[in-house]
């Protein structure tokens, strides 16, 4: 029942946002539907777009459950993909799945390290995580810009991008005609792992307790700072992996604008998935569909893809407002 309400609410916000921009609602919804779910290729596109959103969204769940407001998914994702590209550059003798594994490991490690900077600044110097992770996003954009124009640029190539990975090191294509790749299966596997960790293990319980009430956790002798560092670095590793999956699964090379804002979108994905692992899979699919559909809408309907951000913003604000409103109502009824 609750999921039906959320879904209807999401459709309503979408329709209202279209209306607010003066776009024909039904026609635009039709374009979105066609681009996202219209045929086999559209569905593949949706799944491919949902992939980084789901993985980074899971990262957000870990951080936010631990009380660490990680807004730096974008930077962690970009640094992760950069580390993947650097690894390929250094290890070009390695081939096949071995290279894939090394590249993905580097992505995770780099994402974790980038988030680890913010974690250490918080626990050692009390620097607000929201601010530090965001500032690091802007640094990461410049790191990518430097790498693709400097040490990693394909020799003799005018376009600033890195040398594409060999086909053997890419994820397998599930359909030769679309870019649907085996990396897709990573998201549900990771979701199960995260769910089990957060809900069924002592360390996951500690993480959630630290997120909900750090002083209670401290009183219960839980190492608060260490748990916070763990939450943020695991979150960064997952965001880095999201970048790696896109690198190894879809593009195969790094370039400016590698991420269309996945890191930011994944925050909305996690919030609308009620900070639950399985919820992230669902809302990741929804926003993946919206991203895939918005390209079709842009081609036919005249609304640029920036429109997706507006829908997400409205959805996040409406969601938190409804959540708080019902919580207050319950409190009032109780008192």
């Amino acid at each position, binding site marked *: 029942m609750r999921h039906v309400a959320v879904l209807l609410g999401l459709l309503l916000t979408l329709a209202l946002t279209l209306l607010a921009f003066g776009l024909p609602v039904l026609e635009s919804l039709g374009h979105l539907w066609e681009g996202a779910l219209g045929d086999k290729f559209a569905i593949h596109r949706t799944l491919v777009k949902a992939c980084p959103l789901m993985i980074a969204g899971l990262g957000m769940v870990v951080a936010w459950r631990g009380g660490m407001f990680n807004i730096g998914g974008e930077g962690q994702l970009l640094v992760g993909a950069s580390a993947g590209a650097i690894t390929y550059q250094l290890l070009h003798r390695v081939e096949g799945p071995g290279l894939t594994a090394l590249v993905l490991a580097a992505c995770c490690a780099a994402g974790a390290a980038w988030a680890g900077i913010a974690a250490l600044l918080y626990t050692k110097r009390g*620097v*607000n995580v929201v601010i530090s992770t965001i500032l690091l996003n802007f640094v990461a954009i410049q790191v990518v810009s430097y790498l693709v124009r400097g040490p990693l640029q394909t020799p003799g190539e005018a376009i600033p991008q890195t040398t594409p990975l060999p086909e053997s090191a890419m994820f397998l294509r599930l359909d030769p005609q679309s870019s649907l790749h085996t990396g897709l299966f990573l998201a549900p596997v990771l979701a199960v792992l995260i769910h089990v960790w957060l809900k069924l293990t002592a360390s996951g319980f500690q993480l959630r307790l630290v997120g909900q009430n750090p002083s209670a956790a401290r009183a219960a002798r839980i190492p608060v700072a260490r748990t916070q560092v763990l939450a943020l670095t695991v979150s960064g590793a997952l965001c880095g992996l999201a970048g790696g999956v896109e690198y190894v699964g879809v593009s195969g090379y790094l370039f400016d604008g590698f991420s269309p804002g996945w890191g930011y979108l994944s925050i*909305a994905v996690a919030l609308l998935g009620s900070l639950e692992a399985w919820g992230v899979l669902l809302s990741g699919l929804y926003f993946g569909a919206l991203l895939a559909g918005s390209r079709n809408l842009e081609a036919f309907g005249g609304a*640029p893809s920036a429109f997706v*951000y507006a829908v997400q913003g409205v959805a996040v604000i409406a969601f938190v407002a409804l959540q*708080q409103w019902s919580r*207050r109502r319950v409190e009032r009824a109780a008192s």
Partner: protein
Amino acid sequence: MSELLGIVGAMLSLGTPLVIAATGETVSERAGVLNIGLEGAMLAAAYSGFYTSWQTGNPYLGLLAGCLVGVLVLGATAPLVLHLGADQVVVGTGVNLLCLGVTGTLFVMTFGRAGQLVQVPTVASFGGDMSVNAVMLVAVVLVFVSWRLLFRTDWGRAIRAAGEMPDAARAAGWSVYRLRLQGILISGVTCGLAGAYLSVAQTNSFAENMTAGRGFVVIAAVTFGRWTPFGAAGAALLIAFAYGLQFLIKAYSLPLPYQLFDALPYLIALGVLVGSGRGKAGPAALAIPYKEQR
């Protein structure tokens, strides 16, 4: 000499919006509200200032429109963060996404993909190579006025109480909601003026996501400035200096990757946060919802 004056002028121009937004955000944070949505509100103001200046041909109306939109955007978050007690980071993140989407969509729908080339009338400048303009003077006045208001008036004492110990403000007969609302609205005006300044006075045009993190840089400056208007203004100017270095490196084509200098303002903002260290960590009730008994 004139080159040097030009660079100083550029830095003042880059620092002006940061200083302006920092004064209002200082007041708001003193009252206990952290406006993570500052970035989005600045961006919305930048677009509306640009649009108004383009429509009316009057840059000052553009600045005014920016102030208005800044107040509207941040004011709209007030019922959520004050009355419903919603998390200020979540609401702000929603606002940022919303403003990024709305301005990007409206810009492309109105001006097309080639909209970057649209130039709008700008504010008059004087002072020769330094090219000082009236808004810079407004920035200086705002710093003094907000300091006086915060530290030399009863209202300012109440505002600080609302962010430090809201129960005390309530006991003294002040409404914490109203004080915090005033903080939010003041921050709305200043970040609106700052955003409109970016498009109307600094670049004379608009680009998608043109604020590029300046809202967050302002929040960092407020923290480093120990929540005082003069401190925040000083921190803002320091970061503006880093923005200005980009032009220096491009003008003299130094053998360093330019991306390093593009990243410098953010690195310096991070550095000042590290430097401000533990110490007194700001208003005690910052970003903590308050439930007012009626």
